[in-house]
């Protein structure tokens, strides 16, 4: 195993009961790297992320996180180790205020000065949220909800931020903002990012490397520059 790999998945099989979704998936993510997973609906992208966070168990294979084998760990321990997860569809706590939602993300930590610092960081990244601190999360617009979800994931002080569907249902202007923030997180905070993205153009734009999932199997993986030139990707996902 190479020293600078933060996340390393080898020969992973995941399924729900009798239905197997992922077949022999291998994935690697280096420190300070942005990696995207692209694929059609039902290819197993979300399943892969949920397994990495520990919500769905795997039936075979191993996951290493910064050198530690986390295959057998439950999700609270994985979050403690430095994973941050923004689930698909945001899954905010609608009945709670924006600030409480963000603090929920720090549930694993002791509420001390560093949590306060992270809260300030989230507010400086997403300035809209600061104005809505005391507003119920259910009253936010779609884009604001996504910001809140990413902010909440950042509150666990992750070294690896995992985002499921960054741009789904958002206006292009907001997507541009989010892309900029992701860039900022990587450059200024040194956070690695693993994201699933249905908009392949956006995905290839943000990420350094990409994995293409097709029917639960990694069919291609390469740098995003090369993926953008790949004929198969062009016809199947970019429609060129």
């Amino acid at each position, binding site marked *: 195993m190479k020293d600078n790999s933060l996340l390393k998945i080898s020969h992973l099989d995941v399924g729900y009961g009798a239905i197997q979704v992922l077949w022999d998936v291998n994935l690697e993510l280096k420190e300070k790297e942005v990696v995207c997973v692209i694929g059609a609906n039902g290819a197993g992208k979300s399943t892969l992320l949920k397994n990495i*966070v520990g*919500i769905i168990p795997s039936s075979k294979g191993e996951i290493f996180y910064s050198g530690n084998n986390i295959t057998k760990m*439950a*999700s*609270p*321990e*994985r*979050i*403690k180790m430095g994973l941050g*997860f*923004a*689930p698909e569809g945001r*899954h*905010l*706590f*609608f*009945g*709670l205020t924006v600030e*409480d939602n963000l603090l*929920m*993300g720090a*549930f*694993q930590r002791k509420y001390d000065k560093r949590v306060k610092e992270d809260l300030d960081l989230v507010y400086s990244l997403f300035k809209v949220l600061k104005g809505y601190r005391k507003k119920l999360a259910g009253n936010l617009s779609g884009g604001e909800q996504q910001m809140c979800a990413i902010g*909440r994931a950042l509150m*666990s002080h992750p070294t690896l931020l995992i985002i499921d569907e960054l741009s789904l249902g958002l206006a292009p202007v907001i997507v541009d903002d989010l892309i900029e923030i992701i860039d900022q997180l990587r450059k200024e905070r040194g956070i690695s990012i693993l994201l699933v993205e249905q908009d392949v153009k956006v995905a290839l734009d943000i990420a350094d490397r990409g994995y293409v999932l097709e029917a639960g199997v990694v069919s291609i993986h390469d740098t995003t520059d090369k993926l953008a030139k790949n004929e198969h990707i062009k016809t199947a996902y970019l429609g060129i």
Partner: protein
Amino acid sequence: MSNNKKVNIFLLIIAVVLFIFLPRFLSGYMVRVITTIFMYAVIAQGMNIMSGYMGYLPFGNAMFFGIGAYVTAIGMSKGLPFLVVVPLAAITAILFSILLGLPVLRLRGHYFAIATIGMSAAILSVVKNATEITGGAMGTTLPIIDKDPSIVYNYFYLAMFGLMVITTLSLYFIIKSRFGFGIRSIKANEEAAISMGINTTYHKVVAWAISALFTSIAGALYAYWMSFIAPDEVFDVMIAVNTVVIMLIGGAGSILGPIIGAFIIELFAEVAWSAFLEYHLAALGIIIIIIVFFVPKGVSGTIADFIKRKKIRARKRVSI
């Protein structure tokens, strides 16, 4: 805001003092009615932590009431004093809640509610058939306190009232704690709670254990108070049905809601009993339908909304 809080605490203390001296001015019958109200308020708080705050409806919670009552009856028939038997009853109920909770709390929504009803029924039939230990379907008796009945009723009134106050205060502090934050997040969105690294299984099982603790002590007091219990009575599903209605009418997910609900429903049931002896259940049912239609947030929720609206209106007037 803090001034407001002080006023609230002051009012609550006055209410507590009033209730302590209330029995002096009431008939023995009314004292018993109000004791029942306190009892239902305690059981409703047990329902409140699970359903009002965590979003899991434990329809079979009557089983903890029955377990509390039966452990008390069996323990006291063996000659143990009441104060020794109560912790035993509570521990038994907590053990049951953990053993049953670990598998059943994986179910969500209606499935969980139905599974708990099934368990309640299973325990009921065990109690009915274990005649040598429990006295079977005929029921069993407990020692009677050898004192004037009015003193005894007073004693149970105060005990039940104390239990209600302790239960409500504990719930208040639990909800304000980090643990309370966790269980509220489960109601808000369990998926997200898992994604945030919250150990949902732990939170759910502990919440149900707390619920079982409240309910079983109410059952223990009830058994000693009645000095006779029968399985069909203490494991009655109607206990849970009543409690759910109380919680909904008072306001699920509010601290004082279950107490308000218990007073409304039980006092109304008293009126319904005396006015429509034959149709009182029908009358009660109709009132419940009306309340659910027009006061869906429960009494405490509606009052809170009313106050909020008034404040907003006042603020608007100022800004104009």
